[in-house]
Protein backbone atom coordinates (compact mmCIF):
# COMPACT_ATOMS: atom_id res chain seq x y z
CA UNK A 1 0.00 0.00 0.00
CA UNK A 2 1.36 3.42 -0.89
CA UNK A 3 1.72 5.97 1.89
CA UNK A 4 -0.82 8.30 0.27
CA UNK A 5 -3.51 5.61 0.27
CA UNK A 6 -2.64 4.77 3.83
CA UNK A 7 -3.03 8.43 4.72
CA UNK A 8 -6.46 8.64 3.12
CA UNK A 9 -7.65 5.56 5.00
CA UNK A 10 -6.35 6.93 8.30
CA UNK A 11 -8.09 10.21 7.55
CA UNK A 12 -11.46 8.47 7.16
CA UNK A 13 -10.91 6.34 10.26
CA UNK A 14 -9.89 9.35 12.33
CA UNK A 15 -12.85 11.37 11.08
CA UNK A 16 -15.16 8.50 12.03
CA UNK A 17 -13.62 8.28 15.49
CA UNK A 18 -14.11 12.01 16.08
CA UNK A 19 -17.78 11.69 15.11
CA UNK A 20 -18.38 8.68 17.34
CA UNK A 21 -16.70 10.15 20.41
CA UNK A 22 -17.90 13.73 19.98
CA UNK A 23 -21.38 13.40 21.60
CA UNK A 24 -19.89 11.81 24.71
CA UNK A 25 -17.36 14.60 25.06
CA UNK A 26 -20.07 17.20 24.42
CA UNK A 27 -22.25 15.67 27.12
CA UNK A 28 -19.39 15.53 29.60
CA UNK A 29 -18.42 19.20 29.07
CA UNK A 30 -21.96 20.55 28.92
CA UNK A 31 -22.62 19.07 32.37
CA UNK A 32 -20.30 21.74 33.86
CA UNK A 33 -22.39 24.68 32.65
CA UNK A 34 -24.86 26.94 34.31
CA UNK A 35 -28.34 26.49 32.87
CA UNK A 36 -28.88 30.09 31.70
CA UNK A 37 -25.37 30.57 30.34
CA UNK A 38 -25.62 27.32 28.39
CA UNK A 39 -28.92 28.48 26.85
CA UNK A 40 -27.05 31.16 24.92
CA UNK A 41 -23.72 29.37 24.47
CA UNK A 42 -24.20 28.15 20.89
CA UNK A 43 -20.92 26.24 20.80
CA UNK A 44 -20.05 23.07 18.95
CA UNK A 45 -17.59 22.18 21.69
CA UNK A 46 -19.02 23.54 24.95
CA UNK A 47 -15.85 24.09 26.93
CA UNK A 48 -17.15 26.00 29.95
CA UNK A 49 -15.90 29.48 30.77
CA UNK A 50 -16.51 28.62 34.40
CA UNK A 51 -16.45 25.00 35.54
CA UNK A 52 -19.44 24.40 37.81
CA UNK A 53 -19.87 21.04 39.49
CA UNK A 54 -23.34 21.75 40.83
CA UNK A 55 -25.11 19.71 38.16
CA UNK A 56 -22.87 16.71 38.66
CA UNK A 57 -23.33 17.08 42.42
CA UNK A 58 -27.10 16.83 41.92
CA UNK A 59 -26.61 13.21 41.02
CA UNK A 60 -25.80 12.50 44.66
CA UNK A 61 -28.19 15.05 46.03
CA UNK A 62 -31.79 14.62 45.08
CA UNK A 63 -33.55 12.34 42.70
CA UNK A 64 -30.93 10.50 40.76
CA UNK A 65 -29.19 8.25 43.24
CA UNK A 66 -32.13 5.92 43.79
CA UNK A 67 -32.65 5.31 40.04
CA UNK A 68 -28.92 4.61 39.81
CA UNK A 69 -29.24 1.83 42.42
CA UNK A 70 -32.39 0.49 40.75
CA UNK A 71 -30.47 0.25 37.49
CA UNK A 72 -27.81 -1.86 39.17
CA UNK A 73 -30.35 -4.18 40.75
CA UNK A 74 -32.10 -4.66 37.43
CA UNK A 75 -28.83 -5.30 35.61
CA UNK A 76 -27.84 -7.97 38.15
CA UNK A 77 -31.19 -9.67 37.89
CA UNK A 78 -31.38 -9.89 34.10
CA UNK A 79 -27.72 -10.74 33.59
CA UNK A 80 -28.23 -13.53 36.14
CA UNK A 81 -31.57 -14.82 34.85
CA UNK A 82 -30.70 -14.84 31.15
CA UNK A 83 -27.24 -16.33 31.72
CA UNK A 84 -28.59 -19.14 33.91
CA UNK A 85 -31.34 -19.79 31.38
CA UNK A 86 -28.90 -19.83 28.46
CA UNK A 87 -26.40 -22.12 30.16
CA UNK A 88 -28.92 -24.60 31.57
CA UNK A 89 -31.22 -24.87 28.56
CA UNK A 90 -28.40 -24.65 26.04
CA UNK A 91 -26.61 -27.49 27.80
CA UNK A 92 -29.78 -29.61 28.03
CA UNK A 93 -30.53 -29.05 24.33
CA UNK A 94 -27.04 -30.05 23.31
CA UNK A 95 -26.53 -33.06 25.57
CA UNK A 96 -29.80 -34.66 26.72
CA UNK A 97 -32.15 -36.72 24.56
CA UNK A 98 -35.82 -36.24 25.26
CA UNK A 99 -39.05 -36.29 23.30
CA UNK A 100 -39.88 -32.90 21.77
CA UNK A 101 -36.27 -31.78 21.62
CA UNK A 102 -36.43 -30.81 17.93
CA UNK A 103 -39.75 -29.05 18.47
CA UNK A 104 -38.38 -27.04 21.38
CA UNK A 105 -35.38 -26.04 19.28
CA UNK A 106 -37.69 -24.73 16.55
CA UNK A 107 -39.64 -22.90 19.26
CA UNK A 108 -36.45 -21.15 20.40
CA UNK A 109 -35.76 -19.92 16.88
CA UNK A 110 -39.39 -18.96 16.18
CA UNK A 111 -39.95 -16.81 19.28
CA UNK A 112 -37.01 -14.62 18.29
CA UNK A 113 -38.86 -13.66 15.11
CA UNK A 114 -42.07 -12.43 16.75
CA UNK A 115 -42.19 -8.68 16.04
CA UNK A 116 -42.13 -6.92 19.37
CA UNK A 117 -44.39 -4.19 17.99
CA UNK A 118 -47.14 -6.81 17.90
CA UNK A 119 -46.66 -7.59 21.58
CA UNK A 120 -46.18 -4.08 22.91
CA UNK A 121 -49.75 -2.93 23.63
CA UNK A 122 -51.14 -6.34 24.68
CA UNK A 123 -48.22 -6.77 27.08
CA UNK A 124 -49.11 -3.46 28.66
CA UNK A 125 -52.73 -4.62 29.02
CA UNK A 126 -51.60 -7.89 30.56
CA UNK A 127 -49.34 -6.09 33.02
CA UNK A 128 -52.13 -3.71 34.00
CA UNK A 129 -54.60 -6.59 34.43
CA UNK A 130 -52.26 -9.12 36.03
CA UNK A 131 -54.24 -11.06 38.68
CA UNK A 132 -53.51 -10.54 42.37
CA UNK A 133 -50.89 -7.85 41.82
CA UNK A 134 -51.10 -4.17 42.66
CA UNK A 135 -54.62 -4.40 44.11
CA UNK A 136 -56.06 -6.52 41.30
CA UNK A 137 -58.47 -9.33 42.10
CA UNK A 138 -58.36 -12.81 40.60
CA UNK A 139 -59.95 -11.50 37.40
CA UNK A 140 -57.40 -8.70 37.15
CA UNK A 141 -59.86 -5.95 38.04
CA UNK A 142 -59.83 -3.29 40.70
CA UNK A 143 -56.18 -2.26 40.84
CA UNK A 144 -53.33 -1.12 38.66
CA UNK A 145 -51.51 -4.46 38.39
CA UNK A 146 -47.86 -4.17 37.47
CA UNK A 147 -48.18 -0.59 36.27
CA UNK A 148 -45.86 1.52 38.41
CA UNK A 149 -45.14 -1.60 40.46
CA UNK A 150 -41.45 -2.08 41.31
CA UNK A 151 -41.51 -5.70 40.13
CA UNK A 152 -42.56 -4.80 36.58
CA UNK A 153 -38.91 -4.10 35.76
CA UNK A 154 -38.00 -7.67 36.72
CA UNK A 155 -40.77 -9.97 35.49
CA UNK A 156 -40.81 -9.25 31.77
CA UNK A 157 -38.88 -11.54 29.46
CA UNK A 158 -38.97 -11.35 25.68
CA UNK A 159 -38.43 -13.90 22.94
CA UNK A 160 -35.19 -12.19 21.95
CA UNK A 161 -33.54 -13.53 25.12
CA UNK A 162 -33.66 -17.03 23.62
CA UNK A 163 -30.92 -15.92 21.24
CA UNK A 164 -28.50 -16.54 24.11
CA UNK A 165 -29.85 -20.06 24.63
CA UNK A 166 -29.22 -20.70 20.97
CA UNK A 167 -25.72 -19.27 21.21
CA UNK A 168 -24.78 -21.43 24.18
CA UNK A 169 -26.23 -24.54 22.55
CA UNK A 170 -24.08 -23.85 19.49
CA UNK A 171 -21.02 -23.47 21.70
CA UNK A 172 -21.84 -26.78 23.39
CA UNK A 173 -22.33 -28.55 20.08
CA UNK A 174 -18.84 -27.45 19.13
CA UNK A 175 -17.36 -29.01 22.28
CA UNK A 176 -16.44 -32.73 22.32
CA UNK A 177 -18.09 -34.79 25.06
CA UNK A 178 -14.80 -36.27 26.27
CA UNK A 179 -14.41 -33.99 29.30
CA UNK A 180 -17.87 -34.70 30.63
CA UNK A 181 -17.65 -38.41 30.02
CA UNK A 182 -14.47 -38.60 32.03
CA UNK A 183 -16.23 -36.73 34.84
CA UNK A 184 -19.30 -38.99 34.69
CA UNK A 185 -17.12 -42.09 34.91
CA UNK A 186 -15.56 -40.62 38.03
CA UNK A 187 -19.05 -40.43 39.51
CA UNK A 188 -19.77 -36.71 39.03
CA UNK A 189 -23.48 -35.87 38.71
CA UNK A 190 -25.25 -33.74 36.11
CA UNK A 191 -25.07 -30.36 37.83
CA UNK A 192 -21.65 -30.97 39.31
CA UNK A 193 -20.32 -31.74 35.85
CA UNK A 194 -22.03 -28.71 34.39
CA UNK A 195 -20.68 -26.27 36.95
CA UNK A 196 -17.23 -27.73 37.54
CA UNK A 197 -16.35 -28.90 34.02
CA UNK A 198 -18.48 -27.10 31.43
CA UNK A 199 -18.77 -23.61 32.91
CA UNK A 200 -14.98 -23.12 33.22
CA UNK A 201 -14.45 -24.30 29.64
CA UNK A 202 -17.20 -22.03 28.29
CA UNK A 203 -16.11 -18.97 30.26
CA UNK A 204 -15.69 -16.68 27.22
CA UNK A 205 -19.19 -17.22 25.85
CA UNK A 206 -20.67 -16.93 29.36
CA UNK A 207 -18.85 -13.64 29.81
CA UNK A 208 -20.34 -12.47 26.51
CA UNK A 209 -23.85 -13.35 27.68
CA UNK A 210 -23.44 -11.66 31.06
CA UNK A 211 -21.87 -8.47 29.73
CA UNK A 212 -24.12 -8.01 26.70
CA UNK A 213 -27.25 -8.40 28.81
CA UNK A 214 -25.88 -6.16 31.52
CA UNK A 215 -25.27 -3.34 29.04
CA UNK A 216 -28.60 -3.85 27.26
CA UNK A 217 -30.52 -3.82 30.55
CA UNK A 218 -28.67 -0.77 31.82
CA UNK A 219 -29.48 1.13 28.63
CA UNK A 220 -33.12 0.08 28.34
CA UNK A 221 -35.05 3.27 28.91
CA UNK A 222 -38.36 2.34 27.25
CA UNK A 223 -39.54 -0.23 29.82
CA UNK A 224 -39.20 2.10 32.82
CA UNK A 225 -40.33 5.05 30.71
CA UNK A 226 -43.57 3.24 29.86
CA UNK A 227 -44.30 1.32 33.05
CA UNK A 228 -42.91 3.41 35.91
CA UNK A 229 -43.98 6.85 37.03
CA UNK A 230 -42.75 6.78 40.63
CA UNK A 231 -39.22 8.11 41.11
CA UNK A 232 -38.51 5.44 43.74
CA UNK A 233 -38.80 2.63 41.20
CA UNK A 234 -37.26 4.41 38.23
CA UNK A 235 -33.98 3.40 36.61
CA UNK A 236 -31.26 5.79 35.53
CA UNK A 237 -31.79 5.41 31.78
CA UNK A 238 -35.55 5.74 32.26
CA UNK A 239 -35.08 8.88 34.33
CA UNK A 240 -32.76 10.52 31.79
CA UNK A 241 -35.16 9.49 28.99
CA UNK A 242 -37.98 11.18 30.87
CA UNK A 243 -35.94 14.37 31.27
CA UNK A 244 -34.95 14.33 27.59
CA UNK A 245 -38.55 13.82 26.47
CA UNK A 246 -39.43 16.91 28.53
CA UNK A 247 -36.76 18.98 26.81
CA UNK A 248 -38.89 19.14 23.69
CA UNK A 249 -42.18 19.57 25.54
CA UNK A 250 -41.93 22.06 28.35
CA UNK A 251 -40.59 25.54 28.87
CA UNK A 252 -37.87 25.09 31.45
CA UNK A 253 -34.87 23.49 29.81
CA UNK A 254 -32.10 22.49 32.13
CA UNK A 255 -29.78 21.05 29.51
CA UNK A 256 -26.69 20.97 31.76
CA UNK A 257 -28.51 18.85 34.34
CA UNK A 258 -29.60 16.39 31.65
CA UNK A 259 -26.03 16.23 30.33
CA UNK A 260 -24.53 15.69 33.77
CA UNK A 261 -26.93 12.83 34.50
CA UNK A 262 -26.52 11.42 30.98
CA UNK A 263 -22.74 11.41 31.40
CA UNK A 264 -22.97 9.62 34.73
CA UNK A 265 -25.37 7.10 33.17
CA UNK A 266 -22.91 6.39 30.36
CA UNK A 267 -19.97 5.65 32.67
CA UNK A 268 -20.84 2.08 33.83
CA UNK A 269 -21.41 0.58 30.35
CA UNK A 270 -18.39 2.50 29.05
CA UNK A 271 -16.16 1.04 31.78
CA UNK A 272 -17.48 -2.46 31.11
CA UNK A 273 -16.81 -1.97 27.43
CA UNK A 274 -13.32 -0.54 27.82
CA UNK A 275 -12.15 -3.37 30.06
CA UNK A 276 -14.09 -6.30 28.62
CA UNK A 277 -14.55 -5.35 24.98
CA UNK A 278 -12.97 -8.57 23.75
CA UNK A 279 -15.96 -10.57 25.01
CA UNK A 280 -18.57 -8.08 23.85
CA UNK A 281 -17.29 -7.49 20.33
CA UNK A 282 -16.33 -11.10 19.60
CA UNK A 283 -19.51 -12.45 21.10
CA UNK A 284 -21.51 -10.06 18.99
CA UNK A 285 -19.67 -11.02 15.83
CA UNK A 286 -20.05 -14.73 16.52
CA UNK A 287 -23.78 -14.26 17.11
CA UNK A 288 -23.94 -12.75 13.63
CA UNK A 289 -21.94 -15.50 11.98
CA UNK A 290 -23.82 -18.34 13.61
CA UNK A 291 -27.25 -16.74 13.41
Amino acid at each position, binding site marked *: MTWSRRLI*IYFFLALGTVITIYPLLF*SFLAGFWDKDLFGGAARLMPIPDKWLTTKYAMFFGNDAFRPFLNSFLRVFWYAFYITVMAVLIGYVLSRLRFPGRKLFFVFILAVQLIPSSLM*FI*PTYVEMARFPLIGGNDLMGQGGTGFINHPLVLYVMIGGASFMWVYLFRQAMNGLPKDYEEAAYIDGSGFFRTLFLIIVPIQKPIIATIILSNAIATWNDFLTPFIYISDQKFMTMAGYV*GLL*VSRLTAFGSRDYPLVFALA*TVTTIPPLLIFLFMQKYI*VQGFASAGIKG
Partner: protein
Amino acid sequence: MKTNKSSFLLRNREPLLALAIIGPFLLWYLIINLFPLVTGFLLGFMEWNGLTASPKWVGLNNLKVFFETPSYLSSLWKQLYIGLLCLTVNVAVAFFLALLLNMPLRGRGFFRSAFYIPSITSVATTTAVLLSLLQPQGGGLNGFLETIGMNPIIWTYSPFWMTFWIVVYYTWRSVGPTAIIWLAGLQSIDPTLYEVGKIDGAGRWQLIRYVTIPGLRPIAAYIMITGIIAVMQMWDLVMLISRGGPTGATDVLAYRVYRDGLQSFNLGMAGASSLVLGVLTLLLSFVYLRIFLKGEED
Protein backbone atom coordinates in the same frame (compact mmCIF):
# COMPACT_ATOMS: atom_id res chain seq x y z
CA MET B 1 -43.83 -50.39 44.13
CA LYS B 2 -40.79 -48.53 45.22
CA THR B 3 -38.48 -50.34 42.83
CA ASN B 4 -40.96 -49.70 40.00
CA LYS B 5 -40.99 -46.03 40.70
CA SER B 6 -37.25 -45.69 40.84
CA SER B 7 -36.82 -47.71 37.68
CA PHE B 8 -39.27 -45.36 35.95
CA LEU B 9 -37.11 -42.48 37.12
CA LEU B 10 -33.99 -44.24 35.97
CA ARG B 11 -35.38 -45.21 32.60
CA ASN B 12 -36.61 -41.68 31.94
CA ARG B 13 -33.78 -39.86 33.61
CA GLU B 14 -32.89 -37.58 30.70
CA PRO B 15 -36.45 -36.51 29.73
CA LEU B 16 -37.31 -35.81 33.37
CA LEU B 17 -34.16 -33.82 33.92
CA ALA B 18 -34.82 -31.84 30.73
CA LEU B 19 -38.39 -31.16 31.82
CA ALA B 20 -37.29 -30.05 35.30
CA ILE B 21 -34.78 -27.60 33.85
CA ILE B 22 -36.65 -26.25 30.83
CA GLY B 23 -40.08 -26.30 32.49
CA PRO B 24 -39.81 -23.32 34.85
CA PHE B 25 -38.18 -21.02 32.25
CA LEU B 26 -40.69 -22.03 29.57
CA LEU B 27 -43.60 -21.59 31.96
CA TRP B 28 -42.53 -18.07 32.89
CA TYR B 29 -41.97 -17.12 29.27
CA LEU B 30 -45.46 -18.38 28.37
CA ILE B 31 -47.12 -16.63 31.32
CA ILE B 32 -45.66 -13.33 30.17
CA ASN B 33 -45.94 -13.78 26.40
CA LEU B 34 -48.77 -16.16 25.49
CA PHE B 35 -51.56 -13.73 26.33
CA PRO B 36 -50.00 -10.77 24.46
CA LEU B 37 -49.24 -12.95 21.46
CA VAL B 38 -52.83 -14.19 21.14
CA THR B 39 -54.31 -10.77 21.95
CA GLY B 40 -51.84 -9.14 19.60
CA PHE B 41 -53.67 -10.78 16.75
CA LEU B 42 -57.15 -10.24 18.19
CA LEU B 43 -56.89 -6.70 19.54
CA GLY B 44 -56.99 -5.23 16.04
CA PHE B 45 -60.50 -6.62 15.62
CA MET B 46 -61.88 -5.14 18.81
CA GLU B 47 -62.95 -1.86 20.25
CA TRP B 48 -61.64 -1.34 23.75
CA ASN B 49 -60.47 1.46 25.99
CA GLY B 50 -58.65 -1.09 28.16
CA LEU B 51 -59.99 0.22 31.44
CA THR B 52 -63.40 -0.75 32.68
CA ALA B 53 -65.60 -1.88 29.81
CA SER B 54 -65.03 -5.25 28.17
CA PRO B 55 -63.64 -5.39 24.64
CA LYS B 56 -66.21 -5.36 21.87
CA TRP B 57 -65.71 -7.38 18.69
CA VAL B 58 -65.87 -5.08 15.67
CA GLY B 59 -64.41 -7.38 13.02
CA LEU B 60 -62.48 -5.70 10.23
CA ASN B 61 -63.71 -2.25 11.18
CA ASN B 62 -60.41 -1.05 12.73
CA LEU B 63 -58.43 -2.22 9.72
CA LYS B 64 -60.94 -0.49 7.47
CA VAL B 65 -60.48 2.74 9.42
CA PHE B 66 -56.73 2.27 9.21
CA PHE B 67 -56.68 1.93 5.44
CA GLU B 68 -59.21 4.71 4.90
CA THR B 69 -57.53 7.29 7.13
CA PRO B 70 -54.78 9.23 5.33
CA SER B 71 -52.86 9.98 8.52
CA TYR B 72 -52.50 6.28 9.36
CA LEU B 73 -51.39 5.43 5.85
CA SER B 74 -48.90 8.26 5.84
CA SER B 75 -47.55 7.09 9.22
CA LEU B 76 -47.07 3.64 7.76
CA TRP B 77 -45.29 5.16 4.79
CA LYS B 78 -43.06 7.19 7.10
CA GLN B 79 -42.13 4.10 9.08
CA LEU B 80 -41.20 2.43 5.80
CA TYR B 81 -39.19 5.18 4.20
CA ILE B 82 -37.49 6.61 7.28
CA GLY B 83 -36.81 3.05 8.42
CA LEU B 84 -35.40 1.93 5.10
CA LEU B 85 -33.37 5.14 4.84
CA CYS B 86 -31.85 4.45 8.26
CA LEU B 87 -31.19 0.84 7.33
CA THR B 88 -29.64 1.58 3.93
CA VAL B 89 -27.35 4.36 5.12
CA ASN B 90 -26.28 2.35 8.15
CA VAL B 91 -25.54 -0.81 6.16
CA ALA B 92 -23.64 1.09 3.47
CA VAL B 93 -21.51 3.17 5.85
CA ALA B 94 -20.83 0.05 7.93
CA PHE B 95 -19.68 -1.84 4.85
CA PHE B 96 -17.33 0.98 3.92
CA LEU B 97 -15.90 1.01 7.45
CA ALA B 98 -15.52 -2.76 7.41
CA LEU B 99 -13.51 -2.55 4.19
CA LEU B 100 -11.21 0.03 5.81
CA LEU B 101 -10.89 -2.02 9.00
CA ASN B 102 -10.06 -5.10 6.95
CA MET B 103 -6.87 -3.51 5.59
CA PRO B 104 -3.54 -4.37 7.14
CA LEU B 105 -3.12 -1.21 9.22
CA ARG B 106 -1.68 -0.35 12.59
CA GLY B 107 -4.26 0.59 15.20
CA ARG B 108 -7.17 -1.29 13.65
CA GLY B 109 -8.23 -2.54 17.06
CA PHE B 110 -8.44 1.01 18.40
CA PHE B 111 -10.69 2.20 15.58
CA ARG B 112 -12.87 -0.89 15.84
CA SER B 113 -13.46 -0.14 19.52
CA ALA B 114 -14.09 3.54 18.88
CA PHE B 115 -16.80 2.82 16.30
CA TYR B 116 -18.43 0.37 18.68
CA ILE B 117 -18.76 2.82 21.59
CA PRO B 118 -21.96 4.63 20.49
CA SER B 119 -23.89 1.37 20.56
CA ILE B 120 -23.15 0.82 24.25
CA THR B 121 -24.68 4.17 25.20
CA SER B 122 -28.38 4.57 25.88
CA VAL B 123 -30.64 6.26 23.33
CA ALA B 124 -31.94 8.30 26.26
CA THR B 125 -28.54 9.82 27.04
CA THR B 126 -27.17 10.61 23.59
CA THR B 127 -30.25 12.06 21.89
CA ALA B 128 -29.95 14.99 24.30
CA VAL B 129 -26.76 16.09 22.55
CA LEU B 130 -28.54 16.21 19.21
CA LEU B 131 -31.45 18.16 20.71
CA SER B 132 -29.08 20.71 22.18
CA LEU B 133 -27.12 21.10 18.94
CA LEU B 134 -30.32 21.62 16.93
CA GLN B 135 -31.80 24.30 19.13
CA PRO B 136 -32.70 27.25 16.92
CA GLN B 137 -31.23 29.79 19.35
CA GLY B 138 -28.17 28.98 21.40
CA GLY B 139 -27.78 25.63 19.67
CA GLY B 140 -24.28 24.54 18.73
CA LEU B 141 -24.95 24.01 15.03
CA ASN B 142 -26.51 27.40 14.40
CA GLY B 143 -23.75 29.02 16.43
CA PHE B 144 -21.26 27.34 14.13
CA LEU B 145 -23.16 28.41 11.00
CA GLU B 146 -23.14 32.00 12.21
CA THR B 147 -19.41 32.02 12.92
CA ILE B 148 -18.69 30.89 9.37
CA GLY B 149 -21.05 33.56 8.09
CA MET B 150 -24.05 31.47 7.07
CA ASN B 151 -27.69 31.91 7.94
CA PRO B 152 -28.98 29.85 10.86
CA ILE B 153 -31.45 27.09 10.06
CA ILE B 154 -34.53 26.38 12.13
CA TRP B 155 -33.87 22.67 12.10
CA THR B 156 -36.93 21.59 14.03
CA TYR B 157 -39.29 23.24 11.52
CA SER B 158 -37.85 21.41 8.55
CA PRO B 159 -39.17 17.93 7.65
CA PHE B 160 -36.08 17.30 5.55
CA TRP B 161 -33.60 18.16 8.29
CA MET B 162 -35.43 16.27 11.04
CA THR B 163 -35.52 13.13 8.89
CA PHE B 164 -31.88 13.72 8.09
CA TRP B 165 -30.89 13.95 11.77
CA ILE B 166 -32.91 10.86 12.68
CA VAL B 167 -31.02 8.91 10.01
CA VAL B 168 -27.71 10.38 11.18
CA TYR B 169 -28.42 9.47 14.79
CA TYR B 170 -29.54 5.95 13.89
CA THR B 171 -26.41 5.40 11.82
CA TRP B 172 -24.16 6.91 14.46
CA ARG B 173 -25.46 4.49 17.06
CA SER B 174 -25.67 1.31 14.94
CA VAL B 175 -22.78 1.54 12.52
CA GLY B 176 -20.12 0.01 14.79
CA PRO B 177 -21.82 -3.34 15.47
CA THR B 178 -22.94 -3.60 11.84
CA ALA B 179 -19.37 -2.96 10.67
CA ILE B 180 -18.11 -5.65 13.07
CA ILE B 181 -20.48 -8.17 11.51
CA TRP B 182 -19.49 -7.16 7.98
CA LEU B 183 -15.87 -7.48 9.06
CA ALA B 184 -16.46 -10.96 10.48
CA GLY B 185 -18.04 -11.83 7.15
CA LEU B 186 -15.11 -10.48 5.15
CA GLN B 187 -12.67 -12.39 7.31
CA SER B 188 -14.63 -15.62 7.08
CA ILE B 189 -14.03 -15.84 3.33
CA ASP B 190 -11.38 -18.42 2.60
CA PRO B 191 -8.25 -16.49 1.44
CA THR B 192 -7.24 -19.34 -0.87
CA LEU B 193 -10.28 -18.44 -3.03
CA TYR B 194 -8.66 -15.08 -3.76
CA GLU B 195 -5.33 -16.76 -4.53
CA VAL B 196 -7.00 -19.17 -6.93
CA GLY B 197 -8.90 -16.30 -8.55
CA LYS B 198 -5.71 -14.29 -9.02
CA ILE B 199 -3.95 -17.27 -10.58
CA ASP B 200 -6.88 -17.66 -12.97
CA GLY B 201 -6.35 -14.04 -13.99
CA ALA B 202 -9.33 -12.38 -12.27
CA GLY B 203 -9.12 -8.61 -11.80
CA ARG B 204 -9.97 -6.78 -8.61
CA TRP B 205 -13.61 -6.21 -9.55
CA GLN B 206 -14.02 -9.78 -10.69
CA LEU B 207 -12.70 -10.98 -7.35
CA ILE B 208 -15.26 -8.81 -5.59
CA ARG B 209 -18.03 -10.01 -7.88
CA TYR B 210 -17.27 -13.73 -7.79
CA VAL B 211 -15.60 -14.26 -4.42
CA THR B 212 -16.47 -11.48 -1.96
CA ILE B 213 -20.15 -10.93 -2.74
CA PRO B 214 -21.18 -14.61 -2.80
CA GLY B 215 -19.15 -15.20 0.38
CA LEU B 216 -20.97 -12.36 2.15
CA ARG B 217 -24.49 -13.53 1.32
CA PRO B 218 -25.33 -15.22 4.63
CA ILE B 219 -23.97 -12.23 6.57
CA ALA B 220 -25.89 -9.80 4.39
CA ALA B 221 -29.09 -11.72 5.05
CA TYR B 222 -28.48 -11.60 8.78
CA ILE B 223 -27.73 -7.86 8.75
CA MET B 224 -30.73 -7.02 6.57
CA ILE B 225 -33.26 -9.11 8.46
CA THR B 226 -32.23 -7.98 11.93
CA GLY B 227 -32.09 -4.46 10.50
CA ILE B 228 -35.58 -4.62 9.00
CA ILE B 229 -36.99 -5.91 12.27
CA ALA B 230 -35.25 -3.09 14.14
CA VAL B 231 -36.31 -0.16 11.93
CA MET B 232 -39.88 -1.37 11.48
CA GLN B 233 -40.52 -0.99 15.19
CA MET B 234 -38.29 2.00 15.83
CA TRP B 235 -39.98 4.86 17.64
CA ASP B 236 -37.92 5.58 20.75
CA LEU B 237 -35.44 7.86 19.05
CA VAL B 238 -38.16 9.48 16.95
CA MET B 239 -40.06 10.31 20.13
CA LEU B 240 -36.98 11.83 21.73
CA ILE B 241 -35.53 13.65 18.70
CA SER B 242 -38.55 15.03 16.84
CA ARG B 243 -41.76 13.91 18.61
CA GLY B 244 -42.97 12.95 15.16
CA GLY B 245 -42.71 16.57 14.07
CA PRO B 246 -42.60 18.98 12.41
CA THR B 247 -46.33 18.69 11.69
CA GLY B 248 -46.23 14.92 11.62
CA ALA B 249 -43.43 14.69 9.05
CA THR B 250 -41.57 12.05 11.07
CA ASP B 251 -44.60 10.55 12.81
CA VAL B 252 -43.76 6.88 12.24
CA LEU B 253 -46.49 4.31 12.81
CA ALA B 254 -44.81 2.63 15.80
CA TYR B 255 -44.83 5.97 17.64
CA ARG B 256 -48.50 6.37 16.75
CA VAL B 257 -49.17 2.90 18.24
CA TYR B 258 -47.68 4.11 21.51
CA ARG B 259 -49.83 7.26 21.53
CA ASP B 260 -53.02 5.51 20.42
CA GLY B 261 -52.55 2.69 22.89
CA LEU B 262 -51.11 4.23 26.02
CA GLN B 263 -52.11 7.88 25.80
CA SER B 264 -55.55 7.81 24.12
CA PHE B 265 -56.40 4.26 25.25
CA ASN B 266 -57.71 3.46 21.80
CA LEU B 267 -56.47 -0.10 22.05
CA GLY B 268 -58.35 -1.33 19.00
CA MET B 269 -56.65 1.08 16.62
CA ALA B 270 -53.29 0.53 18.31
CA GLY B 271 -53.85 -3.19 17.83
CA ALA B 272 -54.79 -2.79 14.17
CA SER B 273 -51.70 -0.64 13.53
CA SER B 274 -49.41 -3.13 15.32
CA LEU B 275 -50.94 -5.93 13.29
CA VAL B 276 -50.18 -4.11 10.04
CA LEU B 277 -46.64 -3.33 11.23
CA GLY B 278 -46.00 -6.85 12.50
CA VAL B 279 -47.29 -8.59 9.40
CA LEU B 280 -45.37 -6.20 7.18
CA THR B 281 -42.16 -6.81 9.14
CA LEU B 282 -42.50 -10.56 8.71
CA LEU B 283 -43.38 -10.12 5.04
CA LEU B 284 -40.36 -7.91 4.34
CA SER B 285 -38.06 -10.37 6.09
CA PHE B 286 -39.47 -13.26 4.05
CA VAL B 287 -39.24 -11.34 0.78
CA TYR B 288 -35.65 -10.49 1.54
CA LEU B 289 -34.84 -14.11 2.45
CA ARG B 290 -36.56 -15.28 -0.72
CA ILE B 291 -34.54 -12.98 -2.98
CA PHE B 292 -31.41 -13.88 -1.14
CA LEU B 293 -32.03 -17.64 -1.34
CA LYS B 294 -32.85 -17.36 -5.02
CA GLY B 295 -29.52 -15.66 -5.60
CA GLU B 296 -27.90 -18.59 -3.82
CA GLU B 297 -29.17 -21.03 -6.43
CA ASP B 298 -27.42 -19.59 -9.45
